[in-house]
């Protein structure tokens, strides 16, 4: 039972953390709970589908279907997270200052929340499909301990939900003013980490063969299979034995986010209200 609990819990940590962060980011935004709920539900359905067709998926695209699929959905999540941060950089300030027409802001905000809903769906689908396969394996190998294992899995699920709750309540205790900066940083690191994970799949598939050497090995200091290692793996993309390319992509994504939020933020910054100055455009 403990074994099943640990496996399910381990798989669910990443999704739990991500959903918790997204809940905190969108706290108080109208309609966000529905969108996130739909995202999680879609993720569960998607997970079952992925698990059901896992065999076919693995055989697709000359045997690298699974990797291409994983890399693709991870990269979708990365793009959504980047877009959210950039959107917040350009509109967050306006929202805070209430200088923008509320109608437009809410509409655009809706799109930004939809992006985060997709991120939740992707996270749940990825981890959930592995849990679904594991559960299927339990059911297939019928034994006297199956009920025991089912209980363990259910407890693992509960523990995963607890991670979401802890993440959410931990984040929302941060004062509103600082919360924005904290979640922006969290989402940036999350995006970079997910991009590095996508690289792992592309390297494993043999799609990318450059910079495959191990950049460092800190597995003896902090294994990314330990609980703390796993949490850090999700939150900041920590890996105990990353490839050089993973490190490069991680830093590249961070650089892209910083560059984009800076340019978009600057472009959208309120102009000085000097009346006499000649308009530049």
């Amino acid at each position, binding site marked *: 039972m403990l074994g099943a609990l640990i496996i399910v819990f381990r798989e669910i940590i990443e999704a739990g953390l991500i959903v918790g962060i997204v809940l905190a980011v969108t706290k108080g935004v109208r309609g966000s709970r529905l969108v996130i709920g739909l995202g999680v539900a879609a993720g569960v359905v998607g997970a079952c589908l992925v698990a059901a067709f896992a065999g076919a998926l693995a055989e697709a695209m000359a045997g690298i279907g699974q990797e291409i699929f994983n890399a693709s959905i991870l990269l979708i999540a990365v793009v959504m997270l980047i*877009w959210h941060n950039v959107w917040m950089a350009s509109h967050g300030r306006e929202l805070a200052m209430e200088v923008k027409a509320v109608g437009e802001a809410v509409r655009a905000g809706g799109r930004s929340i939809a992006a985060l809903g997709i991120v939740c769906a992707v996270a749940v689908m990825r981890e959930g499909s592995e849990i679904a396969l594991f559960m299927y394996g339990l059911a297939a190998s019928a034994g006297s301990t199956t009920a025991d294992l089912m209980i363990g899995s259910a407890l693992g699920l509960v523990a995963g939900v607890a991670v979401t709750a802890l993440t959410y309540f931990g984040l929302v205790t941060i004062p509103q003013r600082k919360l924005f900066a904290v979640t922006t940083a969290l989402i940036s690191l999350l995006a970079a980490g997910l991009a590095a994970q996508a690289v792992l799949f592309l390297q*494993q598939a043999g799609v990318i063969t450059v910079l495959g*050497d191990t950049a460092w090995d800190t*597995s003896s200091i902090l294994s990314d299979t330990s609980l703390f290692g796993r949490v850090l793996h999700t939150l900041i993309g920590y890996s105990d034995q990353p490839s050089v390319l993973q490190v490069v992509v991680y830093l590249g994504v961070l650089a892209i986010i910083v560059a984009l939020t800076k340019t978009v933020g600057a472009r959208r910054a309120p102009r000085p209200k000097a009346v006499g100055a000649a308009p530049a455009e």
Partner: protein
Amino acid sequence: MSLARPLSIFALALAASFGMVQAAFADEPVKLTLTLKDHKFSPAEPTAPAGKPIVIELANQDGTPAEFESKALRFEKVVTAGKTITVNVHPLKAGRYRFYDDYHEATTEGFLVIQ
């Protein structure tokens, strides 16, 4: 607009990384063939030369799915009942590298021995 810009930059970055792939075609990989039966890998300690890319083929002969995984070798791939998968491993230094079935990590493991 706000979406198009990050998307296009991202697409460019992706295209660039795929371009690099074409350029770097390393030497022939060493192929290893493994089976998983009764939740045991065989051979449990396959060997391969150092400094060469490796392709591991795993045939799952059990009636349950497994997740073929290794942190040190950097792969994780689901293999359903009765199916065969392959994973690519970057060139390695001499040593012992652990791999396992993530669904039965404590009992189903093996070591890739690089000489």
